[in-house]
Structure formats: structure tokens, C-alpha cells
């Protein structure tokens, strides 16, 4: 190869892009700033601006007689959150969110465990896609599908009739706090829909957590004399808790703010989401709606603080 000095004279172009590149290379902070400015402007302006506007409006006064909002600051809306009626709404929503999270975790664990520990190659890919597809499939259509399933004369009833379980179903629907007059107007029905819709959000983080668990750990446990169930309780389960916690962020937060499913399935009685929706829409009481949104924000913040201790953020 030719290595005379002439052959290696550097051929640097001097176009504007090149000069800009060199400037940004010399000033990495400028480069970083240029990258960050658009997203920061968008999120700072659009998102945080909106959140602050919302919280500020929670302090405005709503006149019940004239049905108008005046920008006089008051704490009345916040105080109203603690009225028994509103308190009931919050408790009902919270109970549902916790029940849904718990049930999702129980249902998700075997699927996730099977995926992580007993599938390989093509089967693993199949399971992965088979969980991802329902997760991304349209939320509203999934909710709609359940109205079809649970409707009178619908699929669920057909199966119940086929297996001669009508009496059992009636018995379950008779339990106060769980049942209702029909499946589609019962707490149970609403609970089923929520669990169905958010279940994939629980499966994937648990699966990921189990997948990260090195097989040598389980072999070590077995080697040290633990029986399979002891290994499961002492090693597998504790190490999958971050995954469960991460998944529950979704199931909890998504249930807490939902107002479509409670509107379509289940007995009457507001959820936090429906209350916000009705306050700002039908009633036009934006301040009360704004105050009400504080509830899910605070609850989610508390929840995040709890699951952070369980290592949820490392498993996201």
C-alpha cells in the first residue's frame, strides 16, 4: 500500500453541516441542550402547564345556583372530597383497583412462570405475541366484546346454561357487594372486565422478572437441599416480587382512572373517573372535577412510593 505523505492529506469538507457537527462536538452541552429543548418545551408547556392549570382550577369557586365558575380561590372543593358520598366513590374505586390488581397477579403468575421457565424458541415467541396482541388490541373493542359476552342471552349465559350452572350463578350473584341482578349489572361482571383488560400488563413484567432469574440460582437452591416448592417459596417468589409490583402499577393506575368500563358494565354508582367526567361535562363544575382528579394523583403517588420499595421501578 502506498504510504507517501501526499496520499494521506485529510480531505475535510467544509459544508455548513460539517461546521455545525464540529461545533456541537466541541460543545457537548450545547448538543445536549439542542436535543432536549423540543421534548422539554412540549412536556413542560403542554403537559405540566395543563396539570398546573388543572390544579389551580381546583381552587376556583363554583356557584351551584347560577352554575358558573368564578376565579375566587377556595378550599371548598377539596373539603368536599371528604363528604360521605364522595368518600364512598373513592373507596369503591380503590377497592376495585386493589381487587383487580390482586386477581391479575394471581392469574398472571402461572402464565408468566410457564412462559419464562418452560418455553423456548418458537413457543416462547408465540406466547409473547399471544400476550402482546390482546394487550395492544383496542381497549374500547375489548370492553364492547364483554358487553356482548355478559349480555342477557349472550355467550356467558349460553355456557352457563349448557353446563347447567344457572343455580350456581344465581347463588354467586346473590352475594351482597359482589353480585347484582344479572352478570352485566353486577360488581362481579365489572371486575371480570377489568381483570381481562389489564391482565397482559401484569403478565409481561412478571415474565421479564422470572426470565432474569438465573437458572443457577434455582440449581443452587436445589443443590443446598431445598425441595421444589421450597425453592419456589424461598427463591422464585421473592425474586419475582419486583415484577408483580411493576405490573400492579398498571393494573392499579388504569383501573383507578377508568370511567368507560364502569359506565358499560356493572351496577350504578360512580367511580372516580365517572365522577370527574360527569362533574366537568354534564354539570360543568370544572373546579370540582379538578379537585377530584387530585384523588387518583395522590393515590397513584402513594402506590408508586410503596411499590418502589418492592423494586418495581427496576422491573419496569
Amino acid at each position: 500500500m502506498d504510504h507517501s505523505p501526499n496520499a494521506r492529506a485529510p480531505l475535510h469538507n467544509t459544508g455548513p453541516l460539517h461546521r455545525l457537527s464540529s461545533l456541537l462536538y466541541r460543545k457537548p452541552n450545547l448538543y445536549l441542550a439542542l436535543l432536549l429543548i423540543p421534548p422539554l418545551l412540549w412536556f413542560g408547556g403542554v403537559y405540566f402547564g395543563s396539570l398546573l392549570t388543572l390544579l389551580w382550577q381546583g381552587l376556583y369557586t363554583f356557584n351551584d345556583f347560577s352554575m358558573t365558575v368564578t376565579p375566587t380561590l377556595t378550599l371548598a372543593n377539596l373539603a368536599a372530597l371528604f363528604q360521605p358520598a364522595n368518600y364512598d366513590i373513592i373507596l369503591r374505586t380503590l377497592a376495585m383497583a386493589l381487587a383487580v390488581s390482586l386477581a391479575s397477579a394471581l392469574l398472571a403468575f402461572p402464565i408468566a412462570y410457564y412462559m419464562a421457565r418452560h418455553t423456548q424458541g418458537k413457543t416462547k415467541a408465540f406466547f409473547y405475541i399471544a400476550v402482546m396482541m390482546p394487550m395492544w388490541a383496542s381497549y374500547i373493542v375489548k370492553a364492547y366484546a364483554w358487553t356482548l359476552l355478559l349480555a342477557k342471552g349472550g355467550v356467558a349465559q349460553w355456557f352457563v346454561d349448557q353446563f347447567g350452572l344457572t343455580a350456581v350463578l344465581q347463588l354467586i350473584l346473590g352475594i351482597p357487594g359482589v353480585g347484582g341482578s344479572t352478570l352485566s349489572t353486577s360488581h362481579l361482571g365489572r371486575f371480570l372486565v377489568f381483570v381481562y383488560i389489564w391482565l397482559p400488563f401484569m403478565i409481561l413484567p412478571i415474565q421479564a422478572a422470572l426470565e432474569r432469574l438465573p437458572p443457577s440460582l434455582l440449581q443452587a437452591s436445589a443443590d443446598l437441599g431445598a425441595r421444589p416448592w421450597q425453592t419456589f417459596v424461598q427463591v422464585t417468589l421473592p425474586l419475582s416480587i419486583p415484577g408483580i409490583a411493576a405490573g400492579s402499577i398498571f393494573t392499579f393506575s388504569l383501573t383507578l382512572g377508568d370511567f368507560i368500563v364502569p359506565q358499560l358494565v356493572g351496577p350504578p354508582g360512580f367511580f372516580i373517573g365517572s365522577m370527574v367526567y360527569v362533574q366537568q361535562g354534564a354539570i360543568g363544575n370544572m373546579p370540582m372535577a379538578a379537585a377530584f382528579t387530585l384523588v387518583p394523583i395522590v393515590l397513584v403517588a402513594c402506590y408508586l412510593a410503596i411499590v418502589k420499595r418492592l423494586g418495581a421501578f427496576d422491573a419496569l
Partner: protein
Amino acid sequence: MHSNPAASGQASWGLKLAAWAGLLFLHFPILIIFAYAFNTEDAAFSFPPQGFTLKWFSVTFARADVLEAIKLSLQIACVATLIAMFLGTLAAAALYRRDFFGKEGISLMLILPIALPGIVTGIALLSAFKTLGIEPGMFTIIVGHATFCVVIVYNNVIARFRRTSYSLIEASMDLGADGWQTFRYIILPNLGSALLAGGMLAFALSFDEIIVTTFTAGHERTLPLWLLNQLSRPRDVPVTNVVAMLVMLVTMLPILAAYYLTRGGESVAGSGGK
């Protein structure tokens, strides 16, 4: 040796059954939607379906309100996706390597719109638009959608960035490429499929979104809003069924494509969720 839970060996019958039953549970309602779209019956949702027909498809595509809603949803999803791809890629490029003050705060900020219930984002945007005197409509829907789609693109792109060895970028510069050439010849080709996958997921997410949209739509009616409206007025169930199936397809197919684009080690969209 006794059964070893570590090996991908034999699962107990109970576990196997639970896993496959779980999959069935996840897919059964979706199959029902597909079945009903071809049902001959025109009034009730009785089960099992009575017969097979394609006539509801032609009925659906003759409906002006359905076509309007589809067109609007497609437009919104396209614009929101483009904005999200731009902002998400910038954020990923800024955050993936250098440590600086406030970095964690920024990544938290990106996740917030999907970590907080959609209703919070929705009503916050509405109150801001009202304060600013902006009439809700297509523009406001796009702003809302772009906001929560950013994190989807961001997650995909930053995963690819992290998987791509930084020495590739150094090697490019070492061989004489400036920042722009390195971006064009090295970073973009390596990022391409992740960016596309993120874009498709963002598209699916936007196309289907209803909670935030409820607040920011004003008088506009996206496809999910049209569907929701149908549910409270069960007049033309067959048309609703056909639309439901179409929406299902539009939201499910991108996940397949995204999976094949980003296959090999990184999560598609598992974390961050939707």
C-alpha cells in the same frame, strides 16, 4: 435427581393447563368479535351465531359517519405519531448515554402521561385549552395523543441505543465521519427498525385512545368515540360489530410488525405499556 424447576423441562399438568387456559381467556373475547362481524342476525347478540355473511361489510362502508370517523382517526394517528417519533427520538438520544442533573426527572416526566390515569391527562389538557381559549377539535386531540405516544417511541429507541455499542459511533468518527455523517450512515440505519416499531405502536395507541380523547375531542368524533356512542344506542349492532373488528385489526397488527422489526433481545413495548 428430583425434578428440577430450573431447567426448561417438564411443567406440571396444572401449570401447563393454567398457562394455556390463560391464553384462551385472553383471546376468547377477541374471537367473539370476529365471529359476530360475520353473523347473519341483525338485532341481538345471541350465541351461538346464526350464520355467515359478508353483507355487513358493504353496509358499514356505505355509512358516511363511519367513514368520517375512520378518516379522522387515521389523520390524528398519523400526525400524533410523527410528533411522537420526533420528540421521542430526541429524548432518547439525549438520555441514553450522558449523565446529567435532572436526567431521572426527565425520564419520569416522559412516562407520567401513561403512568397517571388517562383521565388526569385528559381533563388537564381540557382545562388548559379552555383557559387559553382554544376550541377543542382535531388539533387538541393530536396534542393529547402526541403527549402520551412520546414514551412509546422513546422506549423503543432508547432500547436500541443501549444495545448499540457506543464504540460504533466512536469508530465512525475515528474513520473521519463528522457528527452528521455518523448520524446518517451509522446511527439512523441502526435505529431505523426500532424507530419504525415505536412509530407503529404509537400509531396503534393513538388510533384506539378514548379516555383522553373524550375530553379533548369537542364535537369531533374519532372511531373509538363513535364506537362508544354506538354502545349506548344499540340500534345497528351489525355495523358496530364490523367496525369493532376493523379497529381490533388496526390495533393488533402493528404489534406483530413491531415484533418482527425489533426481534432479537430487546423488548418491543412490554415495559412502559400503553
